[in-house]
């Protein structure tokens, strides 16, 4: 696998940065010429992970969230979102649809389900007191390639 490009940005765990993270990942992914639908998938998945770091990881206190992304073989987008917050004791339970530890804040418990549906791969590394690292991958079926293919066919 060849690494074509890589980026990293670190920001404070304030809710305003949920939109910031979406704009950053969308801008980085643009070089893969994704479809509108693929961009929406990526923005939504990143929004979920960053919101979780802010809401659950730091529980409204101030800490830093890191968003990293890389592109391999001009087609594969890898994304990592990490925090040094509270961590997750039972990862399997946390990933179950509708499971939330914050029902009083009207959390739906669907964040991990959304990440899983909209990305090709999802993995969670976490331990209580150690923070959380979310890794996601998505293969982008480049718009240019699709256009070329229909042209040839």
């Amino acid at each position, binding site marked *: 696998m060849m690494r074509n490009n890589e980026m990293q940005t670190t920001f404070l765990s304030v*809710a*305003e940065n*949920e*939109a910031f993270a*979406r704009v950053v990942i969308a801008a980085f992914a643009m070089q893969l010429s994704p479809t509108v*639908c693929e961009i*929406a*998938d990526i*923005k*939504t998945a990143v*929004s*979920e992970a960053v*919101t979780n770091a*802010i*809401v659950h990881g730091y529980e409204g206190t101030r800490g830093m969230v890191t968003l990293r992304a890389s592109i391999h073989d001009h087609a594969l987008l890898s994304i990592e979102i990490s925090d040094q917050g509270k961590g997750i004791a039972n990862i399997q339970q946390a990933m179950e649809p509708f499971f939330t530890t914050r029902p009083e*804040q*009207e*959390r*739906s418990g*669907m*964040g991990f*389900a*959304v990440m899983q*549906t909209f990305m090709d791969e999802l993995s969670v590394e976490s331990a209580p007191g150690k923070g959380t690292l979310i890794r996601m991958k998505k293969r982008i079926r480049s718009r240019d390639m699709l256009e070329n293919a229909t042209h040839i066919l």
Partner: protein
Amino acid sequence: MLRSIRDGDKLLVGLDGELDHFCAQSIRRELDSQLADPTIRQLILDFSGLTFMDSSGIGVILGRYRILRERGGGVSVIHMNDHIARIFHMSGMGKVIRQLDRKQEAVR
């Protein structure tokens, strides 16, 4: 400020921009101040101006549904784009939140 139209026991509210955890805080506050009027029994959310929604939006919609269900009413949505519809159906919301196709249906 959210755009809204009142018709009898129905309230039609247009949501604009993005519905994430950050925006949810003010949208929830504004919706609830309008829903403080106990004669409102049906809330219709117009999503035509909504460009982004993540799972925080599910919490907002279901939270308002709970308020209106207490009054024997409910929540419907109109003009959902395909991407938002995927999140909507994934959460099983389609079972309790009516999805209307046209504005005419909503105000009827």
